[in-house]
C-alpha cells in the first residue's frame, strides 16, 4: 500500500472525530491531530482501535504514544504492516 493511499485511508478513519472540516481538506504529513484537527485527546485511542481494525495490525503502547501526527501514524502503520508481511 503506497503512502498516498495510506493517508487517504487514515483521513477516512479520522473524519468522524473532527469538526474542522476545512483543516481536514488540507491534511498532509505534518498535520497534528490535536492542534490542527482539534480532535479530543480521549478519542485518539478510538482512532487507534479503528486503525487496528482497518489494517489488521496491533499497535503497542509505545507506538501509540507517538501517533499524534499523520506522519508518525503512517510510519507506525507501515512498520506494523511490514512486520506482518515478514
Amino acid at each position, binding site marked *: 500500500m503506497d503512502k498516498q493511499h495510506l493517508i487517504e485511508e487514515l483521513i477516512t478513519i479520522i473524519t*468522524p*472525530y473532527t469538526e474542522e472540516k476545512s483543516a481536514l481538506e488540507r491534511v498532509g504529513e505534518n498535520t497534528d491531530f490535536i492542534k490542527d484537527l482539534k480532535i479530543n485527546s*480521549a*478519542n485518539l*485511542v*478510538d482512532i487507534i*482501535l479503528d486503525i487496528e481494525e482497518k489494517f489488521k495490525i496491533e499497535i503497542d503502547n509505545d507506538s501509540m504514544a507517538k501517533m499524534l501526527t499523520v506522519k508518525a501514524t503512517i510510519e507506525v502503520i507501515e512498520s506494523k504492516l511490514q512486520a506482518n508481511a515478514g
Partner: protein
Amino acid sequence: MDNNRVVITGLGICAPNGTTIPDFTDAIKNGISGIKHQPELERLGFSCQIAGMPEFDEERILRYFTPLELRNLNSTGITYGVIAGLDAWADAGLERNTDDEPDWDSGTIFGTGTSGIDKFRWAINKIDDMDIRKLGSSVVVQTMASGVSAFISGKLGLGNQVTTNSSACATGTESILLAFERIKSGQAKRMLAGSTSDSGPYIWGGFDAMKVCTFKHNNEPEKGSRPMSLTASGFVPGSGAGALVLESLESALNRNAKIYAEVLGGHINSGGQRGLGTMTAPNPVAVQRCIKLAIESSGIRSDAIEVVNGHLTATSKDALEIENWKNALGASSGNFPYINSLKGMIGHCISASGSIECVASILELYEGFIFPNINCEDLNPEISSMIDKNRIPQKLIHNQFDILAKASFGFGDINACVIFKKYKNG
C-alpha cells in the same frame, strides 16, 4: 441569603406512554398504558415478563447526539435523559449555548440509579475476554453515574453546578428539591432538574429476583400495574426520564417565559432504617414527618392540598402509604385530597419515577385536570375503609386546582415530598 421564588418554565419527557409533552399529556388524560410484553424478559426466564419502555424511532436520536457519540452509545438511561433534558430546555424557550463562555447562571441536577448498565456489561465481557485494550474511550463517560448530567451539560454549555443525585426511587423528586434550593438561595438562576433510568433485564433483574414485581399479568400487560387495587401483586418495572427547568421567578419574568407552576417548598428525609423502617420498607414516622415538613416549608395549611400524586407502586405497601398521607394531612375520609398514581399506566420507572410523575403533576396543575387511576376498579378495601372512593378518580376529571403534593419513597428508607402551586401572575 436570598430567598427567591422558584417556578417551572420547561418540561421534557421520555416515558413509556409518550416521549413528547403533547403525546404524554394525551396519554395520561386518557389512561393509556405504556406497559408491554417483553420477549427478552420471557426468554431469560423472568417471573415478570412485562415492562414499560419509552419508544421512539432512531431518527429522533439523531437530533440529540452527534454521529460520533452514536457510534458507541449503549446507555439507554443517557439517551432518555438527554432527550427529556434537551426538550425541557427548548420548551422553556432557552437556546443551546453556542458561545465559548459557559452559561454560569445555569446548571443541572440530573439523577439516576445506575448508568449505562448495558455498556458496563459489554465492557466487563471484553475485560474478561482479555480484550481490555478494545474498550475505547466511551466506557467511562457512559458508565459513570454522572454520565447523564455530563452529556446534557456539554450540549447546553452549562456553567453552574452540574451533578447527578442518586436516592433510589426518590431520585427524581429529590433532584427537583435540590435544584429548588440552589435557585432559592441565589446560587443559580436556572437549573435543569430531572432523572433517568436504564431499560432492560440487567436493571430489572434484581427486582425480579426480590419478588417485588408482579408475575400474574404476563398475558395482559396493560392490566399488570395495579396501584391501590385489591389484586395489586407487585410493581411492573419501567424506564425513561423526566426533566423540568426550574428558574427564579425574576429570571422567568425578565425573559417573559411561560410559567407552568411554582415550587412552593418540600422536604427530604430518611427513616434511618429504625422503627418499622428497613432497607426496603419505609418508616411511617419519617414518611409522615417528610410530608408535614414539606407543607410547613411551603407556608400553607395541609387542607390547602387538593391533589396528591402518590408513590403508590402496586404492592402491599399502597395501603400503608394512604394511611401515612391521611395522618400527615390530618384528613378525614371525605376531605382527603384527590389521589392518583401514574404507575398504573407506566409501571415503576425506578430512579426516573419521581421526575416523570412530577412532569405529569405539573401538567395537571397547568392544564387543570386530574388524570385517571387505571387498574383499580377493584379498589383495595383496606384503602376504601380509610378514604372515600370518590377521592381516587378512575375517570379523567377536568378541574382547575391550585396545590398539588407529590412524594416519592426509596430503598434505603428515604423520602422526598414537593409541593407545587398553580402560578397566577403574582
